[in-house]
């Protein structure tokens, strides 16, 4: 665990995810004051039962989404390292989705703005509930590594990998 003063990263151990979706609940309560799974910045996918995992921003070191934004609506928070969305500027053009190697950003279901994890200004609520319940899928660490971008994978790719890890060879049959 880290204090809030330095750039952080949410380390993730996806295969451990219980699929309880408490991260979605915590995220949407914090940002929307509603329980709203589709407006959560972290979303649990379960394309195969038992293969549940949270899908959220990997905070790539070169921030391809920020680069791709045609209206400068995205920026990097110098304090936390998070990607920030300027609601006023964002037009919901979806170019950041295509720029993201993991197609992580998604549209707000009601407003025409993109949703990307902002690390809750350094105190991620999803990590809190995951730790409270001792599932420990998510953990806040200080931002040191350069391999983070590798975690930006599409839900389908992660599913394929985890399915085989969890169910072995027959995991492929369930896709």
């Amino acid at each position: 665990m880290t204090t809030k003063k330095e750039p952080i990263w949410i380390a993730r151990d996806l295969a451990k995810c219980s699929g309880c979706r408490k991260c979605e609940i915590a995220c949407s309560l914090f940002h929307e004051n509603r329980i709203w799974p589709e407006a959560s910045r972290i979303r649990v996918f379960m394309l195969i039962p038992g293969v549940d995992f949270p899908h959220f921003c990997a905070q790539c070191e070169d921030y391809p989404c920020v680069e791709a934004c045609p209206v400068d609506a995205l920026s990097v928070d110098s304090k936390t390292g998070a990607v920030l969305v300027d609601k006023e500027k964002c037009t919901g053009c979806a170019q950041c989705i295509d720029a993201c190697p993991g197609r992580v950003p998604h549209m707000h279901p009601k407003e025409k703005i993109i949703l990307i994890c902002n690390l809750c200004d350094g105190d991620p609520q999803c990590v809190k509930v995951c730790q409270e319940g001792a599932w420990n899928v998510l953990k806040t660490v200080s931002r040191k590594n350069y391999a983070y971008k590798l975690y930006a994978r599409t839900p389908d790719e992660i599913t394929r990998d985890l399915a085989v890890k969890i169910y072995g060879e027959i995991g492929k049959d369930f896709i």
Partner: protein
Amino acid sequence: MIFGYAGKFLEVDLSTEDIKETRFDDDVLKEYIGGRGLAAKILWNRLGSRWETVDPLEPENILLFLTGPLTGFFPGGRICVSGKSPQSNGVVGSTVAGEFGIELRCAGYDGIIVLGESEKPVYLFIKDSDVEVRDAGHVWGKDAKKTVAMLTKECRELLKSRFPRYGEWKEPAMLYIGPAGENKVRTAVVAAKWTHAAGYGGYGAVMGSKKLKAIAVKGTGPLPEVADMEKVKKLMQRVCEDVYEEELWRRWGTGAAGYEVGAKTSSEPIRNWQEEWHDDKSFGVDKFENRFWIKPYWGDFGCPTTCLKVAMVKDGKFKGAITDNPDYEMQAYLGPNLGIFTPEENVFLVSLIDDLGLCGIQTGNVMGFAAELFQRGILTREDLGGLELKWGDAEAFAALAKKIAFREGIGDLLAEGTYRAALKIGKEKNADLLSYAVQSKGVSIGAHGIRSGKDYPKIISYACSVQGGDHTSTAGLPLDWGGSELMEIFNDSGVYCNFNTFGVPRNVRFQFYKAVTGLKLTRKEWCYEKALRVLQMQRALLLLGGPDLKWNPKIHDDNPSRFYEPLPSGPYKGKTVNRARFQKKKKEYYEAVGWDENGVPSSEVLRRLGLDDVDRTLKKLR
């Protein structure tokens, strides 16, 4: 409009493909809340006057999928499936865990009312207010895993093509049936997520009779607005903290009970309840944990318990079998009840039962019944289509489960469930076989016996329940006791998982109800008025019954005769249910809930509860 409700229900007539939105008055929602309570009300209003003639497996039956105001808020999301039950001919509120109720509420609906019958196999696809009836010809006949894979892929592709700029689409939540439901097997389930099932009631058969293979729903809105979000957040945290403290259910789910309920409380079905005690350490939870659990915590929306554990057999003859835990009921009914004490064989059978869309409790019970008839020479190898149905032979039971799911040979009779099978086979064999049928009102009894007196159900629990053998809805006194059927009606009407109420003070659920809806509800008001009203309606519909069977309380408000046989083994050897004591307790229960000496709700109690129409209809039973 009351807080905590999406405010509308989806009503789909499969005969005409007519789709509309239905609303209920606030007064109805205040009285019946949702889920099981509302199901009783809807069914009474729409079918009550001609209930006895409604065949549960004909188009006139109504199939309900109902959430409650607490769905998604009280930790542990569920949905309540109901209708006229093809098992009891009454109403069973049968809940199944998963995200379906949450997605449905996020799509703007509190429930789905399905009428009629489609000509060809279909599934419903709901994306917010877009609702369509789609062809399911390609998934008809497919097992659970293939159905889930094919429809998940198809629905995600639809979403992607229709909303290409949304980003990646999560899977919609899905309820579906397997081959057993398609073949109108009365022990078929409405299932979710491979292993989750609404089993009691047999609503998989109702779904099959309507040729409705599945419902997939994706809702992009928030859960309904609540009266006091700060309070809701506090209560959610409160329930979670109590659960974390408890630890037991988190660690093992109910998986420790396959050994414990046999060895300690001596109340586990063994060889069709001929015994209830075993001390077979080969069936220990550590064996399941160490050999099969590939995911130690698996759960559903908002659940702090995550009591499920994904299990997979990785070597040997049953390699590739996958299920959860198995939980206690599946361990018991597809284990010791069939003379099976080998964990591998248990996981294999549970996995198969999931794939076929069968209920492990009801089907494990009817297979145990068949095996006892084989043991006694009443059913022969020829009757069983060449099967040697010996206790402990997992592959023979697997073959029998397939016969049941596809209604082949003897399977066609056993597919009627234990009670009806006992009548039908008894007629063929010219013998009274009901003494081997361990059920109540057509519903096989959950895997918690009453003879030792050491388990939670009491001697009237099943005999007086309005949901028969349902171990999650047992009758008992006092009426406002945590384990009484009236408190279970709250769980099933608020619609959340009752496992997250263990270790949580029983009033927390009413505080939750107030924080969500803004309406005050006391335990007393619930147990002595509102829930009692639901209970009377369920009782009335159960006694009206029909068309193939009717229950006479004098005969059928009783335990299966097996429970009057002394336990033959174990620390409580010789113990049994005392008939005089049972009659006394039953009388006390009748008096407490206001049923006359014939077991029919009295005019007095019905009128006090404002159920004058029920009173008029029940005149013919008095």
